[in-house]
């Protein structure tokens, strides 16, 4: 009986501490200049298994296999699980998006053909203002700091972010995709996904964020000192 009382007391105090943390978190979030909206974006959960039955499974299996080879592509990996989350939009659009997810991946040759930009060339393109820069790094890195004016299209959250990106950038737009450094492959993954969705004018900035930041070129983000 005494033990039960101890357990209940421990659990009760834990609940009070958790409530305190909840209140403190909410209040601080209001005061914090970097606070976030608590209201989540509406999302639609769709079971992909049904779609696979409609469209055939060969393409899907190929994607799932590819996913294992590229573990960073979590957004794509979601297709290998039972569900895919896509922000609410038209039903037709959603089905089209799912069809794209199970379509064959563009061949590696197409990726190899894409123009590779040096730092100087990337800066020229940036200054011209005609090119949309796309950050393929994980979203949190984008939030911390990114090339000024760049859009986030993280390789790991591509499926989730693409509908928003599509609203801003048409397939005819000139894109410059970058990731962390010349060694990272995230920009190629994102470029492949964009090629798959009809974007043709894609450039890869090879030096990426590391080269851009090292040269003190324009950047922005929550961790950029103003």
């Amino acid at each position, binding site marked *: 009986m005494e033990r039960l009382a101890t357990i209940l007391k421990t659990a009760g105090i834990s609940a009070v501490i958790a409530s305190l943390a909840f209140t403190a978190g909410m209040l601080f979030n209001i005061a914090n200049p970097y606070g976030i909206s608590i209201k*989540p974006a509406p999302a639609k959960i769709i079971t992909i298994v049904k779609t696979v039955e409609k469209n055939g499974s060969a393409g899907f299996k190929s994607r799932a296999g590819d996913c294992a080879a590229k573990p960073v592509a979590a957004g794509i990996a979601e297709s290998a699980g039972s569900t895919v989350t896509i922000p609410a939009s038209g039903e037709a659009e959603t089905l089209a998006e799912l069809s794209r997810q199970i379509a064959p991946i563009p061949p590696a040759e197409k990726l190899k053909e894409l123009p590779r930009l040096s730092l100087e060339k990337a800066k020229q393109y940036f200054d011209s203002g005609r090119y949309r820069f796309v950050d393929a790094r994980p979203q949190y890195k984008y*939030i911390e700091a990114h090339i000024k004016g760049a859009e986030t299209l993280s390789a790991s959250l591509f499926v989730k972010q693409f509908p928003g990106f599509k609203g801003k950038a048409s397939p005819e737009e000139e894109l410059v995709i970058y990731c962390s450094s010349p060694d990272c492959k995230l920009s190629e993954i994102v470029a492949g996904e964009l090629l798959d969705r009809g974007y043709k004018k894609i450039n890869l900035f090879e030096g990426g964020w590391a080269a851009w930041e090292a040269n003190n070129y324009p950047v922005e983000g929550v961790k950029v000192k103003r």
Partner: protein
Amino acid sequence: MVLRILMGAVFVAASYDKLLYPAVFAAKAAEYKIIPELLLPLVAVVLPWLELICGLLLMLDIFTRSTALILIAVLAGYIAGMGYDLSLGLVHDCGCFGFLEESIGAVTIIRDLVFLLLLLPPLVFGGNNFPFFRGKGN
């Protein structure tokens, strides 16, 4: 006592960056497939405070047993989240300490397991009192 202060400091340190930049933490948490999307903002706003408050209480030996229970639950959640993502073949930033750039993997899981084990003595043998009320049969 050393164990309490050490573990408390670990959680206070872990909370600092997450607390200041909830958007960054929310983006890191979004990589964990175990967290429902609906709860992501809430997790990003509340979890750092839970770590901070529990870390401080643990260091000050206030409600030690309850704070240890919460932190064990939090660590179990981290371990489950990392284990689930690794089982899917996903490797992403741990988000454990804002000032550390580290990917999830065996090292982070083992580290969290060690932290969890280190919290067992405070849970089992720790008091559950507020210092000002000690000696009053509380």
